[in-house]
């Protein structure tokens, strides 16, 4: 009889497990407001961002500007009208002057072909008013409709002027400001990771012995120390560096220092735990053997303990450096400095998407390279 019940019991448990899972997923589905149609429908909203990401701002060329100008009295008669030449680079309007709120047509002739032209008003007060940006055709011609604003009125017989600035890229390509900024921030980011990993190692290496059961767990005091050290590591480790960094940035002000400090704290706990596991896994045989040769304590540690743990330690350190570079790239989002800060700024400014693209590319390249490097180093070590 009993034998026959076993499959039924198993079925029951399996069914219960599946029911719980289904319930959990159902609940999660609602809590997380899953809405795939929206994802599809609104995917176009990411177009600007993705396009900018695909055309990052990495190079510029020096720009040479040539300017041509003409007087344009508003309203008519307030100032002498401009003469319109019929050759050479020139601006031509369909009316010689205009009243406020009228529109007229502005044309440019014999400018540089296929180049960008910034057209604007130069006001008598010295200010400028943008009209627009146009591109000339292959004959160096452009045409634009202009609406006259009252602010362009002439003052004391001095008329506003229309200027056309032709921007011509000249000279070789050179790294853009964004690229230089990104490289600098990337350096900061890598150093943040390097510094915090180093300091964390220096603190964690001795502390890890306290959390190693084979070293510490002796007697009441030792056991207490062991559990305290262990829980301390686990507690700190449960916070993402970003969570820590947000508090540290609130305390220390925004910047890489706050980020590094937060990263150091979390890495210390994380390395402490890994180190203590490495220490726990050491083989006591060699220790015995070295003791039997008449070596003193320090010699025993150096010849029997250290060789056993150093490769593991180094591999954990390299691994964490790799992780920390990843985290440093985003720790700036909560005020921790480095490239994340730059990225956040650029994303929040409406015009910064191309620069954000540069930063993201830099992150991808650096993370990729370090991932590879750290994997290679760790492969060599074991």
């Amino acid at each position, binding site marked *: 009889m009993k034998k026959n019940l076993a499959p039924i019991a198993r079925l029951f448990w399996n069914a219960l497990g599946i029911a719980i899972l289904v319930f959990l997923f159902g609940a999660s589905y609602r*809590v997380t407001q899953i809405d795939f149609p929206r994802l599809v429908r609104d995917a176009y909203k990411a177009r600007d961002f993705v396009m900018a990401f695909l055309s990052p701002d990495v190079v510029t060329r020096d720009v040479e500007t040539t300017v041509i100008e003409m007087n344009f009295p508003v309203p008519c008669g307030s100032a002498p009208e401009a003469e319109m030449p019929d050759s050479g680079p020139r601006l031509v309007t369909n009316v010689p002057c205009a009243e406020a709120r009228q529109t007229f047509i502005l044309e440019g002739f014999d400018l540089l072909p296929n180049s960008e032209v910034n057209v604007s008003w130069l006001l008598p007060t010295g200010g400028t008013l943008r009209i627009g940006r146009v591109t000339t055709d292959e004959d160096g011609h452009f045409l634009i409709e202009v609406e006259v604003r009252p602010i362009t009125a002439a003052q004391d017989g001095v008329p506003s002027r229309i200027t056309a600035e032709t921007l011509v890229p000249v000279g070789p390509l050179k790294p853009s400001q964004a690229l230089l900024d990104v490289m600098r921030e990337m350096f900061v980011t890598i150093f943040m990771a390097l510094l915090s990993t*180093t300091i964390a190692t220096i603190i964690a290496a001795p502390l890890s012995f306290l959390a190693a059961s084979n070293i510490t767990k002796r007697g009441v005091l030792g056991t207490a120390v062991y559990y305290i050290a262990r829980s301390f590591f686990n507690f700190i480790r449960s916070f993402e560096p*970003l*969570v820590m960094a947000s508090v540290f940035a*609130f305390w*220390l002000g925004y910047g*890489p220092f706050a980020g*590094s400090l937060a990263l150091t704290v979390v890495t210390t706990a994380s390395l402490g735990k890994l180190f203590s596991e490495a220490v726990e896994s050491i083989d006591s045989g060699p220790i015995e053997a070295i003791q039997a040769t008449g070596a003193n304590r320090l010699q025993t540690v150096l010849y029997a303990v250290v060789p056993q743990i150093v490769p593991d330690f180094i591999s954990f350190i390299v691994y964490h450096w790799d992780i920390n570079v990843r985290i440093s790239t985003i720790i700036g989002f*909560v005020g921790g400095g480095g490239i994340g800060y730059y990225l956040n700024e650029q994303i929040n400014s409406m015009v910064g998407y191309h620069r954000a693209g540069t930063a993201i590319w830099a992150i991808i390249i650096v993370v990729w390279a370090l991932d590879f490097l750290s994997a290679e180093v760790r492969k060599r070590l074991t």
Partner: protein
Amino acid sequence: MKTKAPKRPSPWLAGALSLLLPGLGQIYARQRYRGGAVLIAFLVVLGMVAWYGQPAWYFAPLGIWLWNVWDAVGQAGERRVSVLIPLLLGLTAAYSIGWQMVRVDFTSANWERGLAVLRPMFRPDLFERRTELNRMWTPISVPCSTTQEAPPARRQDGEKLAFATPDCAGVLETVIVSVSGMWPDTDTEIWWETNIGDDKPLGGNENAPLIVRTDETGSLTTTIRVPSTILIAQPDPTLQLTHRIYFDQRRPIGGLQFSTNGGFVVKGMTESVTMALMATFLAVLLAIPISFLAARNLMSANPFTFAIYVVVRTVLNFVRSIESLILAIVFVIIVGLGPFAGVLALAVHSVAALAKLYSEVIEGIDPGPIEAVRATGANWVQVVRYGVIPQIVPPFTAFTIYRWDINVRSSTVIGMVGGGGIGFYLIQWIALNDMRAVGAAFIAIAIVVMTLDYVSARIRERLV
């Protein structure tokens, strides 16, 4: 015999080559990797110093260069040369520059501010005493009108009676309010509710609660000033409208309940955990088929599939190196603030991570059991069922649980860029300097993450 033995590289030539270009001599001495590494290390240190260093730091690349010549000579003579010196030089340069760039400045660590930030965190705002509310209110008209008489500012509710004199008042005018029949000797908060339901405190400069204690008969009388902000939403400030003055008493009835922020902590944490669950689930669905495409042993049969393998691998690596936080920003742009954006970000990152791990499992399948099953005359499906699946299911499960664990951790921060979960609240509380709520969030994170960490470690232990 003599022709067989390769000619020994000349130490002199090796040294000279390395003097010319670091690493060249080592390459000549048939130490290609060492040479490459020396060259790269030299260039990295040189670049670093050239970019950021003061002139004095050029000692580092210079030292490496000199060492490299010595090393090349040593390599040619098959003598062991320690790499300690260049390592130390490089690290010294890196650390001094890093120190300067990270702007390490312990003087900026204002300890008083640190304590001010930290101390409230030790009194986390998670629970509050369960209390019972004794509430009373009276209507009052604002402002007084010349055309219309104000209804009496008085209300009776069983034993309780509340009234205000006069019956109407203008902004910033003083009113006497009175209530009786309340609990005796109890702090009573008096506050204003506008005609459209906005709460206004009455204490301090209209920014703090006004608290008055009832006498032993349960009555109190005090004066208040009509708050200046109550007419802001009103189109015609002369129009008389009815507002309310509330009297609230609270007393503990034993037990604890979540405070307002505590409720948000629970909500945020629930969101975080479910986000992680959902993201992992979605990721597994996608990662399993992809992982087969990314398994070298399955895909290297012909050039076409191998090309697919290379492309899939590259894309996976590419996506994996974008942190989920950055992905979250993109998804927030698409689907707006909220946990769904977080789920998508975590899911995309997890697909890449899981597919890589899964594909490594597939690459590591032991052909022995498959052969054994095949040898019994099993068909293809049976081979997969008895030879392949038992080999891949436990590690797949272990990796999935591990990923869920990571996702729970990540989901605590993804809200910081608007992706939902506890991070969303956390970043706001920090901005508002509500460190007690931050403390509560920290505790919740620690409990949930530590528990899941433990559980997942246990399950994985069993599986492998």
